[in-house]
């Protein structure tokens, strides 16, 4: 008889925090107390609160233990399970009220979320197809196989689902185009090349709920008339590959993939294809070339993949998060899907919170949620009492949302209006110490590296822009640089072939739009207002605070600091390499950075 279940988060992040050893301790302790037959230990997918890992949840109570280590994991068994006492020291403490949260339902990070895409992540064992089925898994496939392809596509059109990969194209229209395209065979492809730095929702779904993607791809196969699916996943995600591969095997065993699925005569199977570190392969035509075994360079659209995709055959390609919505839409209907979100962007969106924010991790909220709710209510605000400056969305293809727009509902269209994009949902919070010129330079550097080289404006233009940005950050900015940057940015946008090039200048354009004063300070005053750009900093010693401890002089790698013991020290500006080590080492706050 099982009386308790221990859910141990085995998401990618918790594994790095020592989840495996914690699980081993739990299993050993259960044996030691002779209750291994009464308590089941289940490793689940990502529970979302990555900074609290490793996480262990005890059911049926739902007690949420966080930051469990090998040293205290035994308490969960000896105290909670044997003596029935909650282990106070492992509960989450709400930072502002200092109240202890007993279950995830008491933690603001969780209570404000609406879990649809992530509904099974952290709730079931991703290696168990039975657990997926117990949560209505593969019900949608059964239902879809009794529907006509046109009816399925109509449900998607009615639902208003838009592609979660970034562009927000209506999914139903894509399916319709693939359905109506002439040519055989047709292919279903899942884009799991989540290259956007800071976004990891696709990884979590593939690792935590792989069957939902298999089910959705099979539904897609029936709807467009394809018998073959390809899952394209990055080699940076070995765990996702492993669990997805395992799930495919199980689905075949249970007859959800293979010949005559559920006895209907419909055949469908999925194969994994691997990407190996090329960001541009997230672009759909580049991804298709990569599956074909070619260099991942994008091609001109039209023809769209729906007409001529893999091996020139009609191909439906959707992102992981998009697919993860499909089975629930089929099961619950279009109306249900539209019950949350905004009119033009129904449903939920998963965001990956990262950067200068208290709670990092994955959060799923209705479309139209404001940035304030995301960052302050769910994310717990900015650590260290610092002020919010901006949120970067859409990664290297996006831009920034400033404090003025904290109360703007976020969906595909609203963010576009202010010059950024939703992207795949990466949301990097920047506090007041961030230099926006430096941030833009960083993202631009990323695109310079990742440009496939096919189009000159993207290959050479981004490089030119990057050199200008470097100059500006090095204090060598010139009058007219801002105008030059904007002009070149517009040319790159207009003349690049694929989304990567067209959106590459976004980080620069967006920061110029909202933080032109910072650019001007760099260029005209040779100052970095946030004290980030190294070459624009001046370190000096404040005589009234310096006690002459010699710590800075000893630390200085270029011997730029002189002074005798117990006497005020001096920095020779001509020698100073601006490494900042004196600033770090001074215990008296006597080094001024400006």
């Amino acid at each position: 008889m099982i009386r308790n279940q221990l859910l141990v988060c085995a998401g990618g992040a918790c594994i790095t925090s020592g989840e495996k050893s914690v699980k081993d301790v739990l299993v050993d302790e259960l044996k030691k107390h002779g209750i291994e037959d009464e308590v089941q230990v289940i490793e689940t997918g990502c529970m979302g609160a990555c900074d609290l890992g490793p996480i262990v949840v005890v059911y049926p109570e739902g007690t949420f233990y966080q930051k469990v280590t090998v040293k205290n994991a035994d308490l969960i068994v000896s105290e909670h399970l044997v003596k029935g006492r909650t282990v106070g020291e492992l509960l989450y403490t709400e930072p502002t009220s200092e109240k202890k949260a007993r279950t995830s339902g008491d933690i603001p990070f969780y209570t404000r979320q609406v879990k649809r895409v992530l509904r099974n992540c952290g709730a079931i064992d991703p290696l168990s197809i039975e657990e997926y089925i117990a949560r209505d898994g593969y019900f949608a496939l059964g239902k879809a196989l009794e529907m006509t392809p046109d009816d399925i596509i109509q449900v998607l059109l009615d639902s208003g689902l838009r592609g979660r990969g970034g562009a927000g194209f209506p999914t139903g229209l894509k399916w319709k185009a693939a359905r109506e395209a002439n040519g055989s065979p047709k292919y279903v492809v899942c884009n799991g090349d989540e290259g956007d730095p800071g976004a990891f929702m696709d990884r979590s779904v593939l690792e935590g709920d792989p069957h939902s993607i298999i089910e959705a791809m099979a539904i897609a196969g029936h709807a467009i008339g394809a018998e073959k699916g390809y899952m394209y996943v990055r080699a940076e995600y070995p765990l996702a590959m492993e669990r997805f591969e395992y799930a495919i095997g199980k689905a075949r065993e249970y007859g959800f993939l293979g010949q005559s699925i559920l006895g209907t005569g419909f055949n469908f199977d999925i194969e994994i294809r691997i990407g190996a570190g090329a960001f541009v392969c997230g672009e759909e035509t580049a991804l298709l070339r990569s599956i074909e075994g070619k260099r991942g360079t994008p091609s001109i659209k039209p023809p769209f993949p729906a007409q001529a995709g893999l091996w020139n055959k009609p191909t439906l390609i959707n992102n992981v998060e998009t697919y993860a919505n499909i089975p629930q839409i089929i099961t619950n209907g279009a109306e249900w899907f539209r019950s949350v979100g905004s009119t033009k962007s129904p449903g939920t969106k998963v965001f990956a919170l990262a950067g200068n924010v208290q709670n990092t991790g994955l959060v799923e909220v209705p479309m139209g949620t404001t940035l304030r709710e995301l960052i302050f209510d769910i994310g717990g605000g900015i650590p260290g009492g610092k002020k919010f400056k901006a949120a970067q969305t859409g990664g290297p293809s996006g831009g920034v949302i400033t404090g003025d727009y904290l109360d703007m509902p976020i969906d595909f269209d609203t963010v576009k209006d202010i010059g950024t994009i939703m992207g795949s949902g990466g949301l990097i919070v920047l506090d007041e110490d961030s230099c926006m010129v430096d941030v833009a330079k960083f993202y631009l550097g990323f695109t310079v590296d990742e440009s496939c080289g096919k189009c000159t404006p993207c290959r050479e233009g981004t490089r030119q822009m990057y050199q200008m940005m470097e100059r500006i950050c090095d204090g060598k900015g010139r009058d007219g640089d801002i105008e030059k940057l904007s002009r070149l940015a517009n040319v790159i946008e207009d003349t690049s072939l694929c989304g990567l090039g067209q959106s590459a200048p976004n980080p620069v354009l967006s920061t110029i739009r909202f933080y032109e004063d910072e650019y001007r300070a760099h260029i005209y005053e040779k100052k970095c207002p946030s004290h980030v750009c190294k070459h624009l900093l001046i370190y000096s010693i404040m005589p009234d605070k310096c006690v002459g401890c010699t710590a800075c002089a000893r630390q200085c790698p270029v011997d730029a600091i002189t002074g005798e013991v117990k006497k005020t020290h001096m920095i020779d500006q001509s020698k100073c390499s601006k490494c900042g080590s004196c600033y770090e080492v001074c215990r008296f706050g006597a080094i001024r950075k400006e």
Partner: protein
Amino acid sequence: MELDNVTRPVGQAQPLSDEDRRFLRELVETNRIEHHGRLSYMDIMFDLEHRYGNSLPGPVLGEVARLVGTSPAQLNGFVTFYTMLSTAPRGKHVVRVCTSGPCHVSGAPAILSSLRQLLGVGIGETTPDGEFTLEGSSCLGICGVSPALMIDDDAYGNLTPEDLPRILDTKRAGGAQ
């Protein structure tokens, strides 16, 4: 690779052993069967890297090009496009430090410079004992525990420079985390 069905003689062929040839033939054939005639080039490349010390030697690529019916230039173009593949020799373990935004702001530069010091090599270089190759990596998707790195298939997060010697030692001894 279907772009080009011309099979050219492999010019730079260095003597591959008979065993190499047999291995390559079987590898390509198995791949062809497993993937129903549509070869998965990336799987072939990872299998090759597994056998040839994390790299893809020219003569091996030449033979594979012949076996799959494409030109060595085409295959070389494919291999050099993807940053995780390498035609240059690499160490037993590839250390991939995530250099993406979230890791960058939470301390990846310090991790990278510590690794440079500990290993005594720069990015793209291999330690003289042939144990480690240091590389930068695109986002590893574990941003919640940034800064992060991956050695072979094992990921490590919430890193501080102090964690690194222990991680390298465990890898050197052949263990996981």
